[in-house]
């Protein structure tokens, strides 16, 4: 193998698994250390800069970081249950405990730059664009059909998971920068909007249409069959405050989980979720499934809805066909009937949460925006520009339903495109991230971070008594970590951003690092081709997603090869190294956002 090029920003970025997995590339270990230090405001700002909604995401994020977290891998075969650091809930700790940070937020300059930008839909994608562009002097106008900002955050996420005050606070931070928010002004025609001569338009209107289930009885029993996201939205706005006693929720995604838990709080006594596929394959996050089951909601699987039964225009139940999963020769899974008799589940109401679709009835087809055969706009995956030079898409509106954190990432990228476009630059030329790497050595055995590895298992977030939470849909279920538990959980973080940096010229091949490494990550061996080399390291490096850090040739002709996979970043290799060939260096990667940093042209000409 060739020596690893650690100058390449991606190399160490990949080692920080959580940051690499986060669509917005939030520097997770950096803010976790700040939480441990009780610097909640600073931790909040690190988050705010990357992901814009720390308080909201700290309660609702889909957490792509957690399955990626190294802690989950290093705990394997080391205890009862390997689990990642509770990254998401630590983020909430920063949001809940921070001091007033309003004076640290940017403000739009009084002198505007003369460029006008329209944002359609006040969800997370548009709000991110607004946050990135308003401080730069752009005149940002944000349209939404609802009177308050937030989009799906406000309409689809139930209050028992996300209190309204948190939404008001974090959307407010953005509006208060100096965004012209036109609440209640729904855009019905993009063509008309384009005539208003905006310099750029961003569409962040989400995926607002819930998929319906067209099976016999649907029309006849329509009064008690609701589309999940519409129903959640009505609940959210207080238009609906009751549901029948027996409720069936169809669908296995997070919306289904929100529906069943909401129904449980609005009078549903016998609420169950029924899914076509197996429990394991459900799209809902594992913790959301667990939370539903915890509230006494059974999840029945391998049942395909066949018919709504009804009597005198009133829904009486749903008939299901029993299926099983069969894998064909190509390994594809198919659901085939088991041949057992159909099952009737009696109920008073059904919530259909089987998916969401995009809908753009308000975008005319003669204005230069192309749509593909699925009715989705043709959008560039990097610049987020549509086939219209001034119109950009992001969030669910761009590539279909995803999560808040993806919408934020799209928003950042679209903001860069808009900023570059309006500065006359090539928008396909993307800015590199800002990286810094610094030694953390403070003394012979002293580092600027806690390198002692906590043996603790993941802490559970405490819940409010279900006697209270199941009665009032507005009472938040999770209480959040208290500062002491937050500290203990934060200490489980392995500080993967503090990198083990090896200098081959200094190494005397004494084996001290090999002997002390608790995870057998380091080997000194003859070089070889990667696959072969991986097999003969001190511990075979079988996780191909994780790189091998390879040095140049050493005095004996061997190389140092370090498997990054389960490194604890405990620094013992560096403490044991007699020549400081190993050093612990903090790698900080910050994404470049819209602004002078993303542009190529010098901002000021020489006088």
């Amino acid at each position, binding site marked *: 193998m060739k020596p690893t090029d650690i100058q390449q920003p991606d190399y160490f970025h990949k080692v920080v698994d959580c940051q690499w997995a986060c669509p917005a590339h939030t520097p997770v270990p950096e803010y976790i250390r700040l939480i441990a230090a009780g610097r909640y405001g600073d931790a909040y700002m690190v988050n705010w800069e990357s992901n814009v909604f720390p308080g909201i995401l700290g309660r609702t994020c889909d957490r792509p970081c957690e399955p990626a977290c190294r802690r989950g891998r290093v705990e394997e075969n080391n205890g009862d249950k390997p689990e990642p650091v509770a990254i998401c809930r630590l983020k909430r700790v920063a949001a809940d405990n921070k001091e007033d940070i309003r004076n640290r937020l940017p403000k739009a300059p009084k002198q505007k730059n003369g460029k006008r930008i329209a944002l359609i839909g006040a969800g997370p994608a548009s709000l991110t664009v607004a946050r990135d562009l308003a401080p730069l002097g752009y005149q940002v106008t944000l349209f939404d059909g609802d009177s308050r900002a937030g989009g799906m955050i406000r309409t689809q996420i139930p209050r028992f998971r996300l209190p309204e005050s948190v939404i008001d606070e974090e959307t407010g931070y953005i509006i208060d920068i100096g965004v012209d928010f036109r609440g209640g002004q729904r855009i019905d025609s993009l063509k008309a909007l384009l005539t208003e001569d905006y310099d750029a338009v961003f569409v962040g209107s989400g995926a607002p249409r819930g998929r319906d289930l067209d099976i016999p009885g649907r029309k006849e029993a329509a009064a008690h069959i609701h589309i999940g996201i519409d129903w959640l939205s009505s609940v959210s706005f207080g238009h609906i405050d009751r549901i029948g006693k027996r409720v069936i929720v169809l669908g296995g995604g997070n919306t289904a989980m929100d529906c069943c838990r909401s129904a449980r709080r609005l009078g549903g006594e016998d609420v169950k979720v029924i899914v076509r596929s197996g429990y394991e394959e459900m799209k809902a996050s594992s913790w959301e499934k667990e939370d539903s089951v915890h509230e006494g909601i059974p999840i029945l699987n391998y049942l395909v809805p066949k018919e709504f039964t009804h009597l005198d225009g009133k829904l009486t139940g749903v008939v299901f066909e029993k299926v099983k999963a069969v894998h064909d020769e190509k390994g594809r899974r198919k659901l085939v009937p088991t041949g057992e008799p159909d099952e009737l589940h009696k109920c008073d109401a059904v919530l259909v949460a089987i998916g969401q679709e995009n809908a753009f009835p308000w975008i005319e087809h003669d204005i230069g925006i192309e749509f593909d055969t699925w009715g989705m706009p043709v959008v560039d995956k990097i610049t987020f520009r549509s086939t219209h030079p001034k119109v950009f898409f992001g969030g669910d509106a761009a590539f279909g339903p995803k999560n808040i954190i993806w919408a934020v990432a799209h928003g950042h990228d679209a903001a860069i495109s808009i900023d570059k476009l309006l500065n006359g630059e090539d928008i396909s030329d993307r800015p590199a991230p800002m990286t810094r790497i610094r030694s953390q050595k403070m003394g012979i055995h002293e580092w600027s971070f806690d390198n002692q590895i906590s043996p603790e298992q993941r802490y559970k977030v405490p819940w409010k008594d279900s006697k209270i939470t199941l009665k009032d849909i507005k009472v938040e279920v999770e209480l959040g970590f208290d500062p002491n538990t937050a500290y203990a959980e934060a200490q489980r973080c392995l500080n993967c951003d503090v990198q083990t940096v090896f200098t081959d010229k200094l190494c005397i091949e*004494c084996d001290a690092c090999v002997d*002390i490494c608790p995870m057998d990550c380091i080997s000194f061996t003859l070089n070889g081709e990667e696959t072969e080399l991986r097999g003969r390291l001190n511990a075979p490096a079988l996780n191909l997603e994780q790189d091998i850090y390879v040095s140049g040739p050493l005095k004996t002709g061997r190389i140092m090869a370090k498997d990054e996979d389960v490194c604890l970043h405990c620094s013992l290799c560096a403490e044991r190294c007699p*020549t400081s060939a190993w050093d612990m260096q903090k790698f900080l990667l910050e994404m470049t956002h819209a602004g002078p940093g993303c542009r190529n042209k010098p901002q000021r000409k020489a006088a």
Partner: protein
Amino acid sequence: MTYLAKPKLHHPALAKNKVGYIRRDYEGTVSTLCAGCGHDSISAAIIQACWELDIEPHRVAKLSGIGCSSKTPTYFLGNSHGFNSVHGRMPSVLTGANLANRDLLYLGVSGDGDSASIGLGQFAHSIRRGVNMVYIVENNGVYGLTKGQFSATADKGSKSKRGVANSDEPLDMIGMALLLGATFVGRSFSGDKAQLVPMIKAAIEHKGAAFIDVISPCVAFNNHAGSTKSYDYVRHHNEAVNRLDFIDARDEITTDYAPGEVVSVTQHDGSVLRLRKLAADYDPTDRIKVMHYLQQRSAAGEVVTGLLYINPESSDLHEHLDTVEAPLNQLEASELCPGSVALERINASLR
């Protein structure tokens, strides 16, 4: 040296041996030696060897004297018996322990100061008596604990860290062990675990006095240009006479070797040592030739390593003294005091 304990977390793929332990279970407390000390590598090699041999930690006694080397038993086999004895007196304490309980595995760990100076007489007598033990000398050629004066094994002409040349002749512990009748003699290097681990394993399975001289650079005081015990010097002058594959009596022999490449030595317990020849015509069972060869190579400035000598027909002190089979602590009062009838019989036989 570090102030932190090594984290308990281990690699998820670490295997358990036949007695149910992972390699990490054979560790001791974290080492307080200098960073980069060769002794820590020897500790790691002992840990690896004991894990591979499926040794139950409570069946091992590790004994040492005084010095950096003699601190190391704290850093391996944390669940074994240990005795940190008086300076240079490890061989006597070990001999006594061995006589009292022959069932344990005796690991004597010493250094060049402990064994070649103050304990030279002790070393000599334990070897010549054929005590069943593994005697490891962690040899760095300096007194590390007292800041780097030459020890008795420092080569004549080698330079101290401050540039002063050594004017004394070195003490050749390998040569002495051979003269004194050690039945297993090896030399290795702390920086070469591929050689050291099988050598320790073979020594553990050997019955009789097994002596291993491990050159172990002192990073703090003897790892400079002019030293003959530095990492660089040993690597440049290392002449391995053979590579050792240790095959446990219980394991099947699966490795294939080209004909003529290998010498197999079967020990008394059935374990097989397979030596891949590196030096042509080197016969590790011919003591006279071995001594001659070593003197020759040493004169040529080479550091000869490998399994230098083995006597497959070895015996030990218990055999020589015809002692009782059971450890003394297992002997019952009836065996220790056979009664007046037996006494009468003995007295009568002496009249």
